[in-house]
Structures are given as C-alpha cells and as structure tokens.
C-alpha cells in the first residue's frame, strides 16, 4: 500500500511504485533493492520524512510510531538505475532502542534524523551513529539529516555542526523539511548514488 499513490506534482523521474522493476524478485546492477532504516529521537520527523517521500503528503499531527512501520518506494536515478527503498521507520522513544537492532541489522542504509531546533535530538543522533558504527553492517551507508529546516528562526543546531560531525564520521549530510518537501527527494537520490553498484546477493 505504501507505494500505491503517485501525485501528479511529483518529480517526473519518480516511478509510480507498484510497477517496480524487480517484481520478479531478482535485483541486478540496474535495479537495486535496498533496506533503509530511519533512526533518531522521538518527534524529529522520521515518519513525516517517509510519508513525504513515499506519498508526497505532510500531516502536522501524524501518529506516534509504535515499534516500527514499513513503507517502500522506487526511484529512478539519472544513470537509469532504479532503486527500490524498503524503508523501516522506527519508534523514537529511548527505550525502543532495545528493538532497533532488529530493524537495522542487515540494512544497507541508515538515515539518522535530528531536529535542527533541538540540540538534544542532535545528541541522540550521535548516539545512533556510534551504535551503527559498532553494530551495523560494515559497509552501511550513513546519512545524517537535520529535519525541520523550515523552522530556521528557532534553529539551535548550526548547519556547520551537522556538517562537521557528518564529515568526521564519513557520512552524507543534508538538511531537509518534510513540511515544505525541501531536499526530501534529494536525500534519497543522493543515497541512491552512493550505493555500492554490485547488489549484495
């Protein structure tokens, strides 16, 4: 259900999800299938990022995520490869971290989200980076995302801090806004470009 809706105003390069290229289940170098997990403090907008990316919607009062929820979306890159993202959106509360390994184990990509208006969430993001460096797949692609960029008047985490931290840890960094859809597609396209081109068998 996650990939059924396709809005007309969305980028024309986006495929409507259901006609995904590897419905035969055999991914190849041109059609990648990628497990992606979203991590980060509660209320930083993980679910909103996914909903914006997959359905093109934004709901300011979305539900609390319990455990984790799953959506998938396929995009086409410029080099005509398609990437099917299988996205696990995890619960943010601290104690749910106990269940996180279940979801990030075997993930090819981890997107760690913080809220640019909350230094605490930035701290939490750093915790997640460390955890993934320790326990994630060794060749995992890490992305650090500062969300709620539209609230720049309340900004408390400078862009530079995010950039510096990401650079230090070999991550890809971007600031997004699920509300205005700023950089959301770019985030996933960039991730797509960074994926190793030989699919894991």
């Amino acid at each position, binding site marked *: *259900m*996650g*990939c059924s809706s396709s809005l007309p105003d969305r980028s024309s390069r986006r495929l409507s999800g259901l006609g995904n290229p*590897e*419905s*035969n*289940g055999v991914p190849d170098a041109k059609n990648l*299938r990628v*497990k992606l997990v979203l991590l980060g403090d*509660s*209320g930083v907008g993980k679910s909103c990022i996914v909903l914006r990316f997959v359905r093109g919607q934004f*709901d300011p*009062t*979305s*539900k*609390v*995520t*319990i*455990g*984790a*929820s*799953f*959506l*998938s979306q396929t995009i086409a890159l410029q080099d005509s490869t398609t990437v*099917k993202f*299988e996205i*696990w959106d995890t*619960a*943010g*509360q601290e*104690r*749910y971290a*106990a*269940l996180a390994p*279940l*979801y990030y184990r*075997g993930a090819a990509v981890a997107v760690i989200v913080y809220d640019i208006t909350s230094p605490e969430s930035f*701290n939490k993001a750093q*915790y997640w980076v*460390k955890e993934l460096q*320790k326990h994630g797949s060794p060749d995992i692609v890490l992305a650090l995302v500062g969300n709620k960029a539209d609230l720049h008047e309340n900004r408390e985490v400078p862009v530079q801090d995010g950039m510096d931290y990401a650079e230090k840890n070999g991550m890809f960094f971007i600031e997004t806004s699920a509300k205005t859809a700023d950089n959301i597609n770019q985030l996933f396209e960039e991730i797509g470009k960074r994926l190793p081109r030989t699919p894991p068998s």
Partner: protein
Amino acid sequence: MLLSLVSRRSLEVDTRDSYGFALRPQHVQRYREYARIYKEEEEERSEKWRIFLENQKESNQFCSSEEEPRQILQAAELREETISVRGQEGDYSSGRRSNFHGSEECDHYKEAQLADAPEKEVQYLEEQQKEQSSAEPGKEVQLSKEPEKEDQNSKELEQVVHHLGEPEKEVQLSKEPKEDKLLLKQSKAGKVQTWYGIRQSLRALEKMMSSRVKHTKNMKDNQITASRDHILSTKDAKLGGQAKDVEEDVCVKDTFDEKVKKTTEENTADNENSLELFFPWKEELVFLVHGGVPKDLRGEVWQAFVGVKARRVERYYEELLAEETDADESEDHGNSTDVARKWKRQIEKDLPRTFPGHPALDEHGRDSLRRLLLAYARHNPSVGYCQAMNFFAGLLLLLMPEENAFWTLVGIIDDYFDGYYTEEMIESQVDQLVFEELMRERFPKLVNHLDYLGVQVAWISGPWFLSIFVNMIPWESVIRVWDVLLFEGNRVMLFRTALALMEIYGPALLTTKDAGDAITLLQSLAGSTFDSSQLVFTACMGFLAVNEAKLQELREKHRPAVLLLVEERSKENRVWKDSKGLASKLYSFKHDPGSITEEKNNGEGGNSDFESPSSNLDALLGSPNVETEADLLPNLQDQVVWMKVELCRLLEEKRQAILRSEELETALMEMVQEDNRRQLSAKIEQLEQEVADLQQALSDKKEQEAAMLQVLMRVEQEQRITEEARETAEQDAAAQRYAVTILQEKYDKAMASLSQMEQRVVMAESMLEATINYESGQAKAHSPRSGHNQSSAEETPGRSMSLLKFGLGWREKVKGKPNHESAHSISSNEGKDCSTWQKESKD
C-alpha cells in the same frame, strides 16, 4: 464516557468510524460495507448480554442469600432490584439504548428517573456540586468510597452515587443544553476526579474477576519494589493497609491459600477451579465475550474484567496528581523530578499525536489524557511512560471516566503486560522469540518462505504486540480482541490473534517475491481485517493449544537469551551515559560552582535509574551529607520516611552489587576461557606445524615417485626399442632363410637338370660308342681298312672323354660341397663308363 459524544459527532465526518477514529481512504468503502454487519452483530450481542445478565441477577440473588447469610441486607436489596427490573419490563420497546440502561439500572435512581425526571436532574446536579466541593484540597468526602469503607449495608446509597456515570448519557438524550453546561462545569473544575463504580448488574462479574486481582496483588506486595521510586514505595506502604481492607471486602471467599510466593501458573489454575466452582455461568460468559461486548456495556465490563474495583486504592490517584505540584515546588528528590521531567516531555510530545483529530480528544480530552499518563508514570516508575500507552489511555478514556481509566491502565500495564513496557522491554522481546517459535511450529511453510525472502517475523509482529493491535487492524477488530484479552487477563489472546492473522493471510504471503512486497502486503491486509468476528473466532477456536502454560514454558526457554543481550547493551550504554554525565557535570561546575551539592544529589538519583556501577562511590560521597540531613529533619515521621527512602536506596545498591558480582563472575569465566583458548591455540599451532612438515615430506615423496616413474618410463622405452630391433633382425633372418631355401631349390633344379644332361651325355656317349663299335666292326669286316679305322676309332673316344672331363671340372668349380658326391658319382660314372669302355675295348 466521551464516546457518547463521539458517536453523534462522528456521523458528520465521513472518514471516521463509529468510534471516531480516522479511516484510511482506501478502507472507507469496505468499512461502509461492514458497518451494517457490525450493527446487526451489535444488536444481537446486546440481546444476548441482556438475557445473560438478567439470568445471572436471579442466580446471584440465590447464591448470595445462601452463601452469605450475614449479608441479608444485600440480598434483600438484590431482590428489590429484580423486582424493580421486572417492573420496567414494559419499557423495553422504547428504543434499544435507553432500554438497555433501563433494564440494568435499578432501585432508587431508576425509579426516580421514571417517576420524575426533573427531580432526578436536580439530584444529579446536587451530586455534581457535592463532588466538586469534595474535590477541593480536603477531599474528605469521596463519593464512591462508601462501599468499601462502610459495610455492605450502604450499598443502596452507593448505587445512587454509582450511577453518576450514567446521567451524562441519559441527560444527553433528553436535554442537551443542560448536559453541555454540566460538562462545561465539570471540565472547568479542572481537578475534579471522576470515579464511578459500575452498574449493579455487572457486580457478580466484577466479583469473579476481582478474585483474580487479589492474588497478583498479594504477590506484588511481597516482591516489593526494588524498582519503584523512593517516594512511591513509601506511599505504597502507607496505602498497603487500606488496600488490604478493600481486598477483604471484595473477595468472594477466602478459600485460597493466602501464603503468597505462588507462581502465576498455580494462581491461574487455582482461579480456574474456584471460578468454575463459584460461577457456574462462566462458560456462558466466555462464549459471550468471544462474541463481543455490547458498546454500551463495554466500558464497565472492561473495568470488571480488569478488576478495577479491587485494584483501586482510595485517594491514590488524586495524590499522584497532587505530587506534580509538590515536585515542582521542592527539588529535594532530584532524581524523581529529573526522570519525571523526561516522561513529561515525552508525554507532551505525544499528546497531539495520539489519535490526532479524534473529536473526543479536544483540549479537555487531552488534559485528561495528560493527567492519566503522568499519574501512571508516577505510580510505576519502572515503566514510567512508554509510547503506546498514550493510545491505550486514549482508548480507555473514550469508554470510562478518568480514574476508572487509570486503574484499568494500571491493571493492563502492571499486570497483563508486566515487564513489557519497562526501560529494557524484556518481556516484549521474549514474546517475540516465543511467537517466532510458535510460527515455525504452526506455519513452517510460511516461515520458510519468509526466511527465503529475508523477512523476520518479529519485524511485523513486534509492532502488533506492542500496540496490542491499536492502529494495526480496524478498530472494531481491535476492540473485539481487547474484549477477549482483558477478560482472559493475560497475553494469550495477543498470540492467538497474531497467529490467526497469519493463518488468514499466510496463503497470500506465499505468493510474494521480495521482502518489501511481503511486508507491505501483510501490513495492508492486516489493516483491512474488517471481519472482526472471523478474526476473533479463528484466534480463539483455532489456537486452543496456545495457552498460558505453554507460553510461560516457552518464555522461560527464551528469556536467558534476551537477558544476555540486554545486559550487553546496558553495559555499552552505561559507558556512553557516564561519559556524558561527567561532561555535563563538569560543564555545570564551571558555570555554577555553587550548585555542586545539588549535583551530588542529582548524581545519586540518576544512578538509581540507570544502574551505574559508580553509584557505590556516589553513595559514599553522599552519605555524610545525608546523615546531617537526617538530624535536621523536623519530626519522627519525616525521619521514618527518610529511613525508608534510604532503605530503598540501599536495597537498590545491593541489587547493583549483586549485578556487578555477576558481571565479574562472567568476566572471570571469560578470562578462564581466554586462558584455555591460549593453550589451545598453542597446541593448534604445534599441530599445524606438524601437519606442514608432513605435507612437506609427502610432497618430497611425490617428487621422488615422479622421478622414478620417469626413469621407469625411459627404461621401458629402451626396451621397446630393443624389442623392435630384435623383431627386425628376426625378420631379416627369416628373409635370408627364405632366400636360402629358394637358392637350394634352384640348386636342386639345376642339379636335376645337370643329371638329366649327364644321362643324356651318357646316352649320347654309349650311342656314340655303339656307333663306333659298329663302325669298327664294319671296318674289321673290311680288314685293310680296319687298321685305319681302328686308330681313328681310338682317337674319337679320347676327344669325347676330354670333353666330358671339362664339363665335370666346370661343375666342381661352381659347387663346393656337393662336388664330392657328384664327383664321386661322376667318377663312378666315369669308372663305369671307363669299365664299360674298357670292357668294350677288351671285347
């Protein structure tokens, strides 16, 4: 209580179901189809329950008068009740809803209502005011406390009070403006704690279910509360006495073994037996519950199931709420405020995200929800606030008053889901392992397929279990599952429902071809499980073998693995948190050196929370401080409180010490293992060396062998060559022999022809001789001439002889050996010739 509001308003909004919850756009159509079925089912079950409750009332009256003669008053009252119900029999036709209430509600209140509605309203208003005034600081007069405090005699009075819950609905039907005002009043009075007992007709049910509560409670009392916060444990102790009083009143009969320390299993078994004994209608009830609880009864029936009345401790809820202000004012117990602040922040974050847009959760609804969640967090600090509870509390608030919802939540989280929503979520992780095993046992084919796709069952079932299906399946189904779950009083229904979903959707899942598709499909299929009856019956009938005993057994089996993981995790996190803690301490020290003592307190508090190994040190540092504090404490009571706090802290430390010793033990084991490993690795190295040597030798041997082989080959080749040479030689020899024989033949032929020629020569000679003889005879006859003839005749044989001798000589020259013979034969021939010639000449 809020639900009644909802059901009216929600009709206006298309995309919400009859509970006021949002429907997904793709489900609106299907929901409409099922709404009709739901309505039919609802009518059917309302009727069934009505009959059941009526029958039960009668039997109950019978039972109670027989069993408990001392409660004559109550029995009398019950009789009165049935009479009054009969009196209202004619009322049933006047609309199902009010009718339903009419049948169940009783005595004074009902009569008053029937006789004189306005009067009743006044009464209600009075009650309302009374309640509000009682909610003021003193709060001495709690409306609902009578039944427990005083004797059963006061039941009648209590009933009047108890029906305070109903008027809201009743009045709504008839006089809406009035009701609105009342509601407004009620909500304005911010701190009013609404608690209502449930209707009389459900009392027996409540009694039955409460007997279950008692035991678990006893157990809890005994286990006391290493995890509980200082203040609260003292509060528990304070309230413990009261709680026991309550229990004694409520309990049906004290036939059970009061000595605690029972396992839960034994308890349930005990309960089963006793329930069978005292409540012969239990079986019927099980059937009814599987069929669903009628909407109008649900709130109260759920409370009865959870045993809210038995759990309730007077004034506990208000005190929990009052704590908030205390905590804000005094910062003594730094630890509790610190943690509480964290919960509070999380709750605030989640309030607007709990059933967003639900018509009942307006500002007041959210205030209610906030109070409820905060109260629970303070009640049980080992859980505090966990996401998911916001949904449970929200759901409960839609069905019952605030304090009732609180106690129901307490029952669910403390009892049914004990250990599920705590900081480590251990039981929830254990349950996932258990569920996976059950899946493997029940649906091996499906699990194999999921394994093949790389999908873990827990990815999907985890959120199901944690949310108790809220937001995972349609609301009608959620609530039907809750009906059974709350009735059964354990998590069995959780497993059965999940298994039922897998059974229903398993075949579809088998057709999926990648992980994403499988998960998406299962999510969306589960989300459209509108056939709630099918789901509940599949769950309850199809998986009878999945029962509490089996689950407990499996849990025991899987728990150690989870504990191990959790421990590892907590070790890591401690390091992380400690380093952070130090940094922040340093920071605040730099900025505000004066606050160092406060820091110490905070440190203490924080440690009790995440079991830092350094807490011992902190405690040592803190204790001198604390001792002086103790002297300063104003009175004995405070000292007692303080001592209790201290005791709890010490207990906590002891626990930590034990934990640490365990850790050290495991570390030691590891070291020992490490040591063994070193020896082993040395041995392995040695062995490897030997193996390498052997391999070297082997390869040398092989080389030699190869060389030998080569030599052998060469020899063989030579042999072959000589053989060939020999063969050619033999061939030559044969050829030569052949040539010899040919020559021999030729020689023989030649000899043969020679002898022929000789014979011819002899013949010619003899002929010649004969001729000569004849001629000489002739000449003798002619005598003169005979001399001449003689001499010429003698001359001629000499010539022929010499000719012959020449031929012989040539022959001897050509042939060596056979010469003799031939010479001999020739000579003999010659001799013969000569003799014949001599004989002739003699003649």
